[in-house]
Each structure stands twice: as structure tokens, then as C-alpha cells.
């Protein structure tokens, strides 16, 4: 895991898992597993993401980052934290 260094901890945020967003809501990525594919798909620290659809029957969540749609495994999505 990459450390959260881009955001000062003195301010208070609602740090949440990406799953807590409701459909259409946006958040900024605070922490993301260190995988090169995640980075290439645009899921990097400080990126603004929007939840397009939630996981259904154990399937992936669909996120929108930089105008791209990315399907992310539910388990993987649980490891991405965001602030609203």
C-alpha cells in the first residue's frame, strides 16, 4: 500500500471505502493498492473517481476516472479508500 502523503492529516475528512459511495457520487482517492494496472487505468492517488454502478451478485463495481469506465473487482475496490 502506498502511504497517504498527499493530504495533510490535520484536516478532517470522511475517509471511506469506495463502496460507500452511492451511484453517481464522486470522491478523491487517498489510498490504493500498489498495482501497475490500477495506476495505468487511472486509479492513482489524488484522482477524482465517480461510482457508476455498484457490485451485483459479487461482480465488480464500475468507476469513472478521467472519463474512462473501469470495472474493478469488489474485493479490490474495498481496498481503495477515498474522501468525499
Amino acid at each position, binding site marked *: 500500500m502506498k502511504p497517504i502523503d498527499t493530504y495533510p492529516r490535520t484536516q478532517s475528512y470522511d475517509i471511506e471505502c469506495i463502496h460507500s459511495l452511492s451511484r453517481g457520487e464522486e470522491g478523491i482517492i487517498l489510498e490504493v493498492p500498489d498495482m501497475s494496472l490500477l495506476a495505468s487505468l487511472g486509479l492513482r492517488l489524488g484522482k477524482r473517481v465517480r461510482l*457508476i454502478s455498484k457490485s451485483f451478485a459479487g461482480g465488480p463495481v464500475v468507476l469513472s476516472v478521467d472519463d474512462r469506465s*473501469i470495472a474493478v473487482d469488489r474485493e479490490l475496490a474495498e481496498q481503495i479508500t477515498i474522501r468525499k
Partner: protein
Amino acid sequence: MAHCGPKTKRRGQSKQLSGGDLHKTILLMGLPNVGKSAIFSRFTGLDVMVSNYSGTTVEFYEGPMEIDGESYLLKDVPGIYNLEDPNDDAERVARQMLEDGPEAIVFVLDALNFESSLHLLMQVLEHDIPTVVALNRTDLMKSRGLRIDASLLQQRLNVSVIPTVALRGNSLDVVKYAMAQTVKQEARHTVPSKDKDRWRVVEELREEVVKTTPQKNGADRFSFLAKPFPGIPIALLVLAVMFGFVIGFGMGLRQYLLLPFFDNLVFPYIRGGVEALTDSQMLRAILIGDDYGFLIKGIEWPFALVLPYVVSFYAMMSVLEDTGYLPRIAVLLDGVFKKIGLNGSCAIPLLLGYGCGIPAIMSTRALPSKKQRLSVAVMVCFAVPCVSQTGAFIALLAERSIFAFLFIFFVSVFAMILVGILMDKFNKQRVPFTLMELPPLLVPAPKLLSKKILFRIRHYLREGAVPMVVAIFFAAVLFELGFFPALGRAMAPVVSGWLMLPEAASTPLVLGVFRRELAVLPLLDLDLTTVQFFTGALVALFYVPCIAMIATLAKEFNVKTAVFVFIGTTATALFVGGLFARGYDLFVTLFG
């Protein structure tokens, strides 16, 4: 075809090689789904091959291309996101190709995936090979309110950057012109990312060259397709329409075009010709007889009964592929597939299997784990009828009872799931994470689409129709020599005793080993009841896929797998077929 094309490996060509040497290669690189194949397609002719990089299962296209009167071999390097993952086969192949010393690189920089593309471009530039950048999908970029300053980017990287719309062929001549200049020179670009954090460099460069005017979010416009509702009903509808089109269009083509053409215009002349040329009863029977008359069935079966469905299936499948809709089906099905240890992306080889099992097995290479590859390949072998066989099923069943035909497909899907569950039971493994991009939906470009469909029909003619004609020829000779009746008597206990079919039905069982549809087509000329037809169809569905698929299995996996599938399918086919025949018999005795 294609998939058995020669293994290619070309090493370190230097610029001293004589002009017109085909060994000079140019690499076409970029992210997946960014229009690389569209550029490849427009730069090369129909003389395209699929090759394997030696020692790997990674496939790529290559074809000759002319620049300034000189021939080059253009290689469509598999789409990748990165160059550095040691575990990713495609990335390893891309790295190896870069090290093999190509003359130049055409890099497709996707305007929509700007940062990721730039990140890959940095890694490619580090190899110091002359590079031309095609900034692609500039049409979609404009509609999303993005403006990219190509000349500024050109300045920063010191490479030619040409805005293009590959799908419509815009500015590709300019790319070619820039290539003509670039291949003559040494690489002279700057690599701003050396010794720095690449993502940071990329983000800074993007800040500099991309201007955004906030607009209605493009990616969200079709987002409903990936949501369970209405995504799943729409997916079912799309598949149903596809199924309907494949069958309807295929039947129409056959009934109103091909059958009348052959029956009225071709066969009378062949019959007349053969009768005029020879008096030998035996020769006449082999050539134009009612059973396996080579010049009649050898034309009718491959070209009038099966070809129409091949055309309609691949037309539909190519449209689905080129619109970018398939990954959405994969996402919707992901949760369900996970229950049997697979990912949603396994849906794509399975769908392809309804066309032909060989490309389906080959395409399992793209799946994330060995276990998934094997599961999906075995599912295709056991339960997915290829389009040739589907065409035969339609000829056999649909005209008698559309219900029986639909029921065969229901059985096929049910069996596919069952095989998937069993494969998972015997080989439990962690399911790899699903992580994929959903490419933007596009209207397919007619020119590229028709080239793709033609390529696939040509593949059927070479790899499907020709072996079928050969098999029918041998069948015709063996039939006249009295081989099949003798075989029928030998197999009587199984065929008549267990399956309750006439002895003559042993012939399709023998032929079916060679071609999947030949397990069905000979039944057409037998005088059977609908129940017997259905038994025959059931046996054919589960029966040995076809010798070419068995060979593909042995090549892609190992001989053990191939033998297991061969024996497993035969046993299942006979078991299920007999069970149905006897079950029906019992049902009639009890309640009829």
C-alpha cells in the same frame, strides 16, 4: 489459417539490409482498444497473418506494408498498459520485440486515455528506437471537450505527433509520410521520464498540453449498459437478437439464395456431366449418389447448409466486437462466473465457441489463469456446438420441431454450466481479480468490419470447408466399398441396442470424429422419427468435438487433456443419448 501460421522470430535486423527486405520490421504499439488494429488494417492489405511469438502463447498480427517503395513487415504488437510486468506474457513479448531491433515504431497515443498512453510511450521511448506518434481518436476527444496541443507535445518529446481518426482513416497518409522520414533517421527524441517518477512526469506533461472544457461526461452516457438494471435485460435482448439474426439470416440465405442456386443451376449440370462421362455404377454412386455423392454432398453440405450460418454468425459477432459491447457483457456476468471459479471475461471465448471451437480455445490465452483456460476450453469442447453444427441442427431439427431445436440449446447451456462446476470442483483456486477497462461504445467502421468478416469467412473456407469436402470424399468411397454397412453391423449393439437408432446411424458417429457437423448431417437422409432425430442430435452435441479441436487442445495444453476430452466426450454422448432414448421409451410405455 491464421492460427497455425509460422512461428515468427526475427532478430536484430540492421539498417544495412538491402532495400525491399521483408525482414525489416515496424512495430505498431499502444494500449488495448485504442484503434491499433484499425491502423494496422488500413496500412496492410488482405495478406495478413496471425503469428505466435516463439515460446509464448501470445498472438499478434503481421502484414507487409510499403513505405516509399520499400517493404516492411508491420507487426501489431499486443495492446498493453505497461512494459515492466515480468509475469505478463503480452508485456514480455512486447519487450522482446523492442529488443529485436525494429526499424521504427508507430505509437498509437490515445487521446481519451491520454495519461496511461503517455506513460507507456515514455517506457517505449526509453528503448531509443525512431518513433512516430499517432494521436488517435481526436474526434471523440473534441466531443468530450478536450483539446490536446499536438505541436507542443511534439516539441516536448521531439517526435512527430500526428492527430488521427484511425477508424475513418483520417490523416493516416500523414503518419505514413512521417514514417518515411523517421525510418531513415536515428532516434533523436527526448525522454523526459529518465530517472524521474514516470507518473509525475506524465501528469505534468498532461497539465501542459491538454486543455479541458468541462462538458457532459462522455463515459457516463452509456453507463446504464454496465448496471444490472437495465444492463442485464438489454444484454439478454442483444443476445436474443443476435441469435435470431444468425438463424434467420442464415436460413434466408440458404433457403432463398444458396439452395435454389445449387439445386437448379449447379447440380443438374454436375449430374448430367457425370452421367455423360461414365457408365460405371460405382463411380456414379461415389460422385453423384444419394448417400455421400461427393460432387453433390461435398458441395451442398459445406457451401449451402453450413456457409450461410458461418456468414451470419461472424457478421453478428464482428459487429458485437467492434462496438465494444462485449466487455459490458463480461462485467454483467462476472459475479455469476465467479461462482464457478471464472471471471466474466470467460464469456467471450464461450461466445466465440458458438462460431468455431478452435479460435475459442486459442482466445482462452487472454484469460488470467491456467485453470480458467482449461475450464473454458473443456466447457467449449463438451457443450458448445460450433456454427457448422448449429447449421446442421437447424437443418435436422428446426424444420421438424422448433421446440426440439431450442431444447438442444437449452441442454447445451445447462451442460456448459455443469461442466464448469465440475471443472471448478476438481481444481479449486482463487479467482483472479477482475480489473478491466470498458472501452467507449463505437459505431463500427464498415470498411474495417467487412475486412474482418471476410477474413473469418476465408478462414472457414480454408480450415472448415476444405477438410469437410475431403472427409465427404472418403466417406463416399468407403460407403461404396461397403465399409460403413459392415461398421454398422459391428456397432449395432451400441447404435441400435443402446441408442435405439438404425444401424446406418453408425456412419455419422465415425464421420463426426473428423467434422462436428458430419455427426449430424448424414442423419438427414435417414428415415427417422423426431425422437430419433433428437437422440442423434443429443449424441452429436456431446460427441468428440472434431479432430482439429482435439489437436488444438493437445497443442495448447497437453496430450493428456486431449485424450481426456476425446474419451470424456464420447462416453458422455453415448450415455446421455441412450438415457434420453430409453427414458422416452419408458415414458411412452408407462403413459403412452
